[in-house]
């Protein structure tokens, strides 16, 4: 069996994030890293592999600039078997539609039984890629799972939706996205870090995927960023140290003055 795990390289959320002049995410100013939420996807892939009687291969797939190779490296250290890095200058500036087109083509080429993604990118936070991939591939999509079970080729998950918690089921091949409630990712041990160096990583470009340059990237994007502006940071207001009820008095006064009651 083969699982393809989608990993994204993102600017570190704890650093200063911002935009470059061309309206794309500034990747110079901050360190990049494997999106924390995708570590849960890698973890879930490994858990399914370990629980299976079959030989399971976990392929980490990323689309992104040269630096994105780091996301693959981290996934290999955590325990993925091999990696594929889709990298092409013409991909730069892709919107979700373009990204899903490229990733769907790479997935088709890898012919997996299961695709596992994180719940959302920590930079874009759209949380739409899993649904888009499911739609493009024509495979069932089970999203936002916190509990995952694979029995033969039947995948059953529990998903917390907006209004209900549901147990849903589908047959492989399928697309699955897992939440940060699905099980804490393991830390790569020294042994795995060493072993990762020997694992195979392939680089693919648009030609390898049979895609035309004008179908993706900034050229094909259906939305253009017109303006980006930093929001004025929130200012610290009044701070009251509570003693003998002065904190409560200040809060009551704030609520009354602001007409919140």
């Amino acid at each position, binding site marked *: 069996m083969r699982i393809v795990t989608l990993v994204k390289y993102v600017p570190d*959320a*704890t650093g200063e*994030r*911002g935009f470059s002049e061309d*309206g794309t995410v500034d990747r110079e100013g901050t360190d990049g890293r494997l999106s924390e*939420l995708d570590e849960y996807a890698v973890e879930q892939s490994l858990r399914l592999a370990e629980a299976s009687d079959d030989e399971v291969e976990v392929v980490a797939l990323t689309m992104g600039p040269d630096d994105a190779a780091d996301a693959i490296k981290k996934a290999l250290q955590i325990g993925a078997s091999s990696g594929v890095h889709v990298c092409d200058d013409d991909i730069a500036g892709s*919107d*979700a*539609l373009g990204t*899903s087109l490229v990733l769907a083509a790479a997935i088709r080429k890898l012919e997996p039984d299961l695709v596992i993604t994180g719940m*959302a990118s*920590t*930079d874009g*936070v*759209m*949380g*739409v*890629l899993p*649904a*888009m991939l*499911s*739609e493009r591939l024509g*495979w*069932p*999509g089970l*999203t936002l799972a916190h509990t995952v079970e694979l029995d033969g080729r039947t995948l*059953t998950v529990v998903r*917390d939706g907006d*209004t*209900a918690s*549901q147990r*849903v*089921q589908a047959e492989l091949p399928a697309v699955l996205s897992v939440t940060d*409630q699905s099980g804490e990712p393991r830390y790569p041990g020294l042994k795995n870090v060493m072993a990762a160096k020997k694992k195979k990583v392939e680089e693919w470009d648009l030609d390898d995927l049979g895609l035309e340059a004008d179908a993706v990237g900034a050229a094909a994007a*259906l*939305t*253009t960023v017109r*303006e*980006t*502006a*930093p*929001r004025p940071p*929130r200012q610290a*207001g*009044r*701070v*009251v*140290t*509570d003693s003998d*009820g002065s*904190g*409560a008095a*200040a*809060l*009551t006064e*704030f*609520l009354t003055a*602001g007409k*919140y*009651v």
Partner: protein
Amino acid sequence: MGSVIVLAEAGEQGVSKPTLELLTLARRLGEPVVVVLGETTGEVVQTLGRHGATAVLTVAEPALQEGLPAPRAEALAQLAGDRQASVVLLTSTPDAKDVAGRLAVRLTAALVTDAIDVQPGEGGVVTRQSVFAGSWTVEAASTADVAVVTVKPNSVEAEEAPVEPAVETVQVTLSETSTAVRVLESSPKAATGRPELTEAAIVVSGGRGTGGDFAAVEAFADALGAAVGASRAAVDSGWYPHAYQIGQTGKTVSPQLYVAAGISGAIQHRAGMQTSRAVVAVNKDPEAPIFEMADLGVVGDLHTVLPAVTEQLRDARG
């Protein structure tokens, strides 16, 4: 003007407030056509009409009632095609985003998620989003014939603009591919009697500092008619259900007032509440980062401060 499709959240409890906000935005962009996936009542139609829905389309296909995204997207794609819609508006919820992503693929539409504003533009709609934990605002223009936009609740004030809607029951054809997922079990979220988290005017959240006892947070919230939220630390400790988590991997809220009690203010938490109109923090630690963004900060124990305020509010009310 083309038609603008609004996917309604409507049920026995009536029409959701975010749906009415979408209608207000839709009126700027074209003729608002509301799609209700499921049964409607006269009251639902009336409310939608009062907010400017020129047409209400109900689709009574049973497979759509389970709430799964694939058949919903397929149905909406057909209706958007039939009506030659230029925009489809949905409320930004995880479920709706699943639908929106699929719909964008089907319609080859521009896709914008978590918009805080939508305006008509020259080649399509112009949207604003707040990104990177609410620290940047991005304005984008769509250049496609169709745009699919999910809008955050509380982004606009819902306004009335009464019309008499044409009500129609429509048929859709669902494919095998989009009905490949089976629902084995569905347990609706228990009602709390409090306002919906993402719609509430006031949200009171508790974190690790509650020590697992949310009684003071809940009582304070009830005195204000507020919704209750939680930090991930509180959720991970099993003190409050995940559905109430505020932050990057939980809900995003933009209330008039956000009260953080026993919450340090990590970037991932701020991502879910940074755009609130006013922020109050109650925390024992004067160095807690949440104070840097609070309009009022109270350095103190939430277990004494909140009950005291709750009491004072009750007394004032008599």
